[in-house]
Each structure stands twice: as structure tokens, then as C-alpha cells.
């Protein structure tokens, strides 16, 4: 691959991301919603816990999860969940979005490889979700009464950033499923809650039965969530040390995008040969 070819592909990625970001700025309410949703979602169990456990909430929570900082615990869960959820929505829903905006046919007629357009969408999604997730975590901590800057912040950020690659690889797998089954919204809505359940949105996955726990451990967002919680709150890494957990995430980062790319391409080619990608 020549340098010129790399520059061309990069320009496609950046143009695609820029288009989506400009589109987002036309709807400031959506950006506000991105900030509010993780805070509101996290506040539900926090308020429930305060009401039911009272002054002993921290102590009881520490006995069950390894940390007394239930505000930080829930906010980390909801912020990581929002990052993962947006990844699935933006990528798995990508073709449907192109169809709704009337650009799907042009996309398939252009000589540009659609992969780079999707990569631009992924870049936009990463920027949007990580920035809003971070702001929501910091803002939510102040609103709900926790220090957002305790613990090892850079290490937590490392877990999030390394975890993004396998997450986006998974979204390609899921996108293939959406292409095949067509009912995008229904599947993504189900996926959102399935993802939040498996990654331990508000609870440690150690309470799962063995089979379910094994499935959760094979799921990259679980490692992202636990890694961020361990770095910031000290709940404990799965393999005792942070570099082992980062190593597992790195393995996922190498495997998942490749697998997702191969599967998505195969399914898309199959769908194009038969029913076409324009039908939903």
C-alpha cells in the first residue's frame, strides 16, 4: 500500500467522521441527552440504595462489591455502558442510517471502499461516546457526591481506549446480524440491555453462575468496566494485576476487529446477491 493510498483512505475516514460530527452539532439536544442519560441511569440504583440501606449503604456495598464508593461504581458502569451502547448503535445501525438519509445508493455506487466510510463513522462514534462518557462521569460524580479524580485515572482511560477496538469489532459482527435479520431497532434495543447485563452494569459479575460468568468473561466490555473500576476504586482485577487484564483486552483488540470485518463482508456480499441491502 502506497503512502498516497493511505492518505486517500485516511481522508475518507476523516471526511465521514467530520460529516457525522457536523450533523450532530445541528442537534444540540442530542449532545445534552448524551450527558444526561448516563447520570440518570446511574442515579436509579444509587437512590434505591440510599433509601433502602440508609447510612450503612457504603459499608453494605463494600461487603458485596469490594468498594464502598457506590456512586463511582454505578457511574463507571453507566459511562462505559453508554460508550459501548453508542458503538453498537452507530455501527450496527450504520447502513440503516445511510438508507434513511438517502445516501445508501450513492455509497454503493462510489468507488470508495465502504469499509473506510464505516471506519469514519466508528471514529465519530468513539469521539462522541468517550468525550460524553468522561464528562458524564465527572459531572455525575459532582452531582451525586463523589470524587471523580480518585484512583489511577490514566490507567482507567487505558482500559477504555484499548477496549474500544474489540468493542467496535463486535459491532461489525452485530451489524452483520442486523443486515441479515433486518429489524435493526429491535435487535439493537435487545442488545443494549444484554450488553449491560453481561458487563455488570451495576453489579459484579462474580454473582453469575459459572456458565454465564464464562460468557461474560469472553465479552470485552466486561474487562473494560472491571478494569476502569479497579483502577479508580480498587475492586480488584480479574487476573490480580492490571497488565494481565490489559493483555487480555489487547488480545481481544487483535481478534475481534478482524473477525468482525470478515463476517460483515461475507454477510453483506451474501445479502447484496440475494435480497439487497436497501430493504429493512
Amino acid at each position: 500500500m502506497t503512502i498516497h493510498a493511505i492518505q486517500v483512505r485516511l481522508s475518507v475516514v476523516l471526511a465521514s467522521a467530520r460529516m457525522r460530527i457536523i450533523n450532530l452539532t445541528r442537534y444540540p439536544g442530542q449532545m445534552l441527552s448524551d450527558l444526561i442519560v448516563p447520570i440518570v441511569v446511574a442515579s436509579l440504583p444509587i437512590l434505591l440504595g440510599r433509601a433502602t440501606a440508609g447510612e450503612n449503604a457504603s459499608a453494605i456495598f463494600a461487603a458485596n462489591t469490594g468498594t464502598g464508593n457506590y456512586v463511582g461504581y454505578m457511574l463507571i458502569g453507566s459511562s462505559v455502558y453508554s460508550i459501548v451502547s453508542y458503538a453498537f448503535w452507530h455501527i450496527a445501525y450504520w447502513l440503516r442510517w445511510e438508507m434513511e438519509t438517502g445516501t445508501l445508493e450513492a455509497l454503493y455506487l462510489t468507488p470508495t471502499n465502504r469499509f473506510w466510510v464505516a471506519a469514519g463513522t466508528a471514529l465519530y462514534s468513539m469521539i462522541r461516546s468517550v468525550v460524553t462518557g468522561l464528562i458524564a462521569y465527572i459531572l455525575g460524580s459532582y452531582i451525586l457526591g463523589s470524587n471523580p479524580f480518585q484512583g489511577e485515572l490514566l490507567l482507567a482511560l487505558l482500559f477504555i481506549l484499548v477496549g474500544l477496538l474489540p468493542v467496535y469489532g463486535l459491532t461489525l459482527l452485530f451489524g452483520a446480524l442486523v443486515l441479515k435479520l433486518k429489524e435493526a431497532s429491535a435487535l439493537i434495543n435487545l442488545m443494549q440491555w444484554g450488553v449491560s447485563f453481561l458487563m455488570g452494569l451495576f453489579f459484579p459479575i462474580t454473582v453469575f453462575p459459572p456458565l454465564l460468568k464464562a460468557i461474560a468473561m469472553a465479552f470485552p466490555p466486561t474487562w473494560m468496566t472491571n478494569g476502569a473500576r479497579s483502577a479508580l476504586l480498587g475492586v480488584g482485577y480479574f487476573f490480580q494485576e492490571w497488565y494481565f487484564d490489559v493483555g487480555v483486552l489487547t488480545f481481544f483488540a487483535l481478534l475481534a476487529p478482524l473477525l468482525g470485518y470478515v463476517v460483515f463482508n461475507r454477510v453483506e456480499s451474501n445479502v447484496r446477491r440475494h435480497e439487497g441491502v436497501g430493504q429493512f
Partner: protein
Amino acid sequence: MTSKPAVAPLLTPARQQSDLAGQFSSFIMMVRKEFTVMTRYPVEFVASFGQIFFIVAIFTLAGLTFNPAGMTSGGGSTGTLTIYGFVIFLFLSDTLWNIGFRVRQEQVQGTLEQLYLSPANKFLSILSRVTTILIWTSLLSVTGVFFMTTLIGQVTVHNPLLGIYVLLIALLGMFGVGFAFAAVTLRLKETANTLINLIQFAFMILTANFFPFSALPEPALFVSRLIPISYAVDAFRSALMGFPPGYPELAPFEVELVIITIFGIVMPVIGFYLYRAAENYARRRGSLSEY
């Protein structure tokens, strides 16, 4: 002498539709259309039950993190409080989206203008969605209670008839809220999507669906007392939990019952008039088909 054959008075389509039998027939056809659309998306139908399972499991486990007996023991009263609040939230959410925002879907699909060109009663189109909500969301609610029972053991059920009355009368009020949001959707178009999202989340906190009202700070509690749906949530779960000490939290049960009843009678009327006003405004401006 031949008698003139009786000639039926000329009935225009508009006049035909104006009589009650015609309107009822239109309503039945619209309900049938909604159910037909629903059955064309079997994945969505099955996925909705899967969602309910995950939501119930997540909030049950979240509640158990504050259980002094540990996470593997049952979470009786907390789970019961959560599931009954969740039932009200399900209906409210479905009302906001399936009544409030469906007008927008009709605009995007391009069928709203055709609907307004037809002699059928336009309000019946919105009303027909009430039927699907009643049936589908009721099924989801029952499923949610079943899942919660499976996870934490028995969910307490006291005063079922009183609970059903509170739910039904509150539903009427929520349908009125849905009609009002349909009016908002006609005016704001795509922005209504974000607005309904934000309001849904605001209601989640202010109407305390998933936690007791005692958890709210005083300023938020003040706002909660201004929202009739808060009294519906409080009365519904208090009645079904058998009025444990401290419940209902916002006001005496008799007072809450009066508030909810007035809400259930007045809000549909307000919602209807708001929708009509927005509809007439859109028709005068010619913006019905704009999106």
C-alpha cells in the same frame, strides 16, 4: 300508476363517515392495521420480552448490592417496590413513544398526509394505538412481574382490585399525556425525539419508579408532588404492597386516589384539545407532510 322508486338521499363519503357506526368501523380497521404491523415484526415482539428480562435482572442485582444479607439471598421488598414502579414506567414510556411520537413516524413514512386527505377521523388513528399499548404493554408487565418472582421469590400482591383501578385510571391520564405529546411532535418534528427522551428520563427520577420517594432530595420531591403520575406510582405500589409502614409516601391514600382520578378524567380531554389545536395549526400552515 307507478310509484317512483325511493331514492336514497345522496350520501357523500364525508357524511357516511360522520356517523358513529362509520367511525367505529374506521377505528376497528385502524386497530387491525396496528396489530397487523406488529405481527410483521416478530423479532421485535420476541426481543421486547428479552429486554424486560434483562432490565428486571439488572435492577434486581443492583438492588442486591445493597442487601446486608449478601447478593445471593432474596431481595423481597426492594424488588417488589421496583417492579411495581417499573410497570407504571413501562406504560408511561410506551404511551410517550407509541402515541406521542408515532405521529412523526407517520410523517416520515409519508402516510400522514394521506390520512388527513381521507374522511376518517384523524384522532381515532392515535386512539387506535391505545389498544395495542393496552395489550402489548400489559403482556410485558405481567412478564416482568413473572421474571422478578423467578429471581427474588414471591412478589407480594395485596389489594389487587384497588391496584387495577389505580392502574387503569392512571393509564387514562397517561394516554392524555400521550395525546399532548403528539401535539408537541406535530409542532417540533424531529426535536420532539430528543424532548421525549429527556422527559422520559426526567420522569424516571421525579416519579421515583425504581426507588422510594424518600430517596429524593427536597427540591426534587417538591417537583415530584406537582406531577400527578408520581401519585399514581405511589398509590399503585402502596396498594399492591399492602400499605407497609411509611407508604404511601406523598400523601394519604384517599388524597392520592382523588388526584389520580381527576388526572384520569381531565388529562385525556386536555390532551385531545391540545392535539386538535396543533393539528389545525399544521393544516393551516401546510406543514403536515413536512419532516
